[in-house]
């Protein structure tokens, strides 16, 4: 087993990786930059290396050099940054450092999204109709022609990078040009590559993914599916496993398709196979995420398997240690992503110093975060502050726990999307488990506060006002249009 691992990431996923490494007795080296210094991953590691600039998180050569310097035998890339870059994996391999993830060859294969779609279709699994190529911003006519052939509605997707940046739903031909411009630009900003490709859109849809894990000895098993349909501005907010709306036959079909695709593409380590489910109940494969996912804890809660440990063991050449028959998918798990975002300001990121930061707790609950009271939430990186994961034997039980956990998560110092999450988990359609992507388009009413409690809260406001000593007649919330719009987080229209 490795003695030292370089954790080439930051925030909650770096904390997550370091914890497992320490459980396994492996030394960890963490990275930080000026804005990261107070993050928990710096405190929990055995060693830490200061980056002269945050850009170095994405600099393959710099990271390989750091790994050499600190004697790391392996690098865990986390998610985002260089996690799925085949060139980075190859640079590690060439330097004699183990890249904890799929092989560079598999990463290269998976990265070519159009080739993957074609290979999967050739293997007899349905994929969305799509453009034959990806297009630079300079290739507007070719993109427009491909859109004409594909028809509407369609989805613009960035060719590089697995995250939702750059994804746009285009309902009408008249929207195409302006949306494509925005998407090119957003993709360039996020991934350094402005290329886009087109896929037919399914409306409404459900977004499903299957976690698969494989070793270098030919073992490949699935760990059940996750639903990621509930989104806000194209970003997943609440995920759950199992998907509540599937029949057992659909579920089994989905799992077998994921395994077949995993074998076809040579997936090892942890990969996630993503699908869209249309309103007629048909699955379409869309892409493979060849890394640990943000929502992996819900799978861990159900299976009892530490996925990061599995990644490390498999990367060290060990066999998986369990077969498909050994995997028990127990109960239901849900995750809510708590972001440092300002609900009063279009959900723009809300950096700052955390004052209060008290987790919810109790049986079947887990909170993953890099933060603590006194920690700085940096402005430079994504706004994910904490993940709240609830498990129970039944879906109703898990939902009850998640609702309570979200209500009890005490955070002050930055704004968060907790009120949005509360509205989602309180929605009857979510409780019913029948939701699809239309859920994201409908307004979510807030909880009905009983009149007595509303009166109590008015008293609280009065006392807060007096304690502050503010002279503020007619203070109004600036929820009215402030002249700002976060373009890349707009809801699909």
């Amino acid at each position: 087993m490795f003695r030292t691992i370089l954790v080439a990431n930051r925030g909650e996923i770096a904390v997550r990786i370091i914890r497992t490494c320490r459980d396994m007795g492996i030394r960890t080296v963490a990275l930080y930059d000026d804005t990261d210094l107070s993050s928990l991953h710096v405190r929990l590691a055995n060693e830490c290396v200061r980056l002269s600039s945050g850009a170095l998180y994405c600099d393959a050569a710099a990271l390989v050099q750091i790994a050499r310097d600190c004697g790391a035998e392996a690098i865990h890339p986390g998610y985002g940054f260089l996690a799925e870059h085949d060139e980075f994996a190859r640079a590690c391999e060439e330097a004699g450092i183990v890249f904890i993830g799929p092989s560079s060859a598999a990463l290269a294969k998976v990265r070519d999204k159009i080739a993957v779609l074609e290979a999967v279709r050739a293997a007899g699994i349905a994929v969305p109709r799509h453009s034959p190529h990806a297009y630079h911003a300079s290739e507007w006519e070719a993109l427009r022609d491909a859109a004409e052939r594909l028809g509407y509605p369609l989805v613009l997707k960035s060719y590089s990078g697995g995250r939702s940046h750059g994804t746009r739903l285009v309902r009408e031909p008249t929207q195409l040009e302006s949306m494509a411009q925005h998407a090119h630009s957003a993709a360039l900003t996020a991934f350094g590559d402005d290329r886009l490709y087109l896929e037919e859109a399914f409306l409404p849809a459900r977004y499903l993914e299957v976690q698969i894990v494989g070793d270098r000895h030919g073992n490949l098993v699935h760990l059940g599916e996750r639903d990621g349909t509930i989104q806000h501005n194209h970003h997943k907010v609440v995920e759950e496993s199992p998907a509540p709306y599937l029949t057992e036959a659909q579920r089994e079909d989905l799992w077998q398709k994921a395994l077949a695709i995993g074998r076809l593409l040579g997936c090892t380590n942890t990969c996630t196979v993503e699908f869209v489910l249309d309103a007629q109940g048909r699955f379409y494969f869309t892409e493979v995420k060849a890394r640990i996912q943000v929502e992996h804890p819900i799978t861990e809660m159900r299976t009892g398997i530490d996925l990061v440990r599995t990644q490390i063991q498999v990367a060290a050449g060990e066999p998986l240690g369990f077969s498909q028959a050994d995997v028990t998918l127990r109960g239901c798990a849900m995750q809510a992503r708590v972001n440092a975002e300002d609900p009063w300001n279009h959900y723009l990121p809300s950096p700052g110093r955390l004052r209060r930061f008290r987790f919810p707790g109790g049986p079947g609950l887990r909170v993953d975060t890099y933060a603590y009271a006194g920690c700085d939430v940096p402005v430079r990186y994504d706004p994910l502050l904490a993940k709240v994961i609830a498990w129970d034997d039944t879906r109703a039980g898990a939902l009850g726990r998640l609702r309570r956990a979200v209500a009890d998560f005490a955070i002050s110092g930055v704004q968060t999307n907790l009120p949005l999450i509360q509205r989602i988990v309180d929605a009857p359609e979510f409780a019913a488990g029948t939701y699809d992507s239309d859920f994201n388009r409908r307004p979510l009413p807030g909880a009905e506060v009983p009149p007595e409690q509303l009166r109590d809260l008015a008293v609280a406001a009065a006392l807060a006002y007096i304690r502050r000593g503010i002279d503020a007649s007619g203070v109004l919330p600036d929820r009215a249009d402030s002249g700002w719009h976060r373009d890349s987080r707009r809801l699909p229209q």
Partner: protein
Amino acid sequence: MSKLSITIDGRTFVIETPPLRRITSEITVRVDGQPVSVLAPETGSPELLDWLIVDGRPYELVVDPNLRWIRSRYGLHQVEVRDLEATVARPASGDGRIKAPIPGLITRVLVSPGETVELGQPLMVLEAMKMENEIRAPRTGRVAQINVSPGQSVALGVVLAEVE
């Protein structure tokens, strides 16, 4: 003694309080004339009020520094406070100055000073947290000033432009 009108989630209450002391004993306030018992412990935290007990019901709170909202376990509540004994009324600010809602980098400026713009028209693009944020006109009018240029980093709250 204070007398306040508090509107919360659309319901209005008139609240009269005795002078507040820094103690953890209970006080009685009047809400629409009815007595309500309140225990609001000193917390020593930077927030001045992060929890209290009203008529035996405990509430943990996050209170907006500008008192525009309160977060409780029920969610986010919109608040409006009117001091019924205050002598000066302050109008709500609604000018055409556009402040940076987040620190970031100006990548593009799409209009020039003197130009006429329409409500919602994009004025510039601010890149922050790997996202492009389009900044739009808060009203129809004339661009009075543009204070930034492409490539410039801006801090939170800096006035970027003004539409008059």
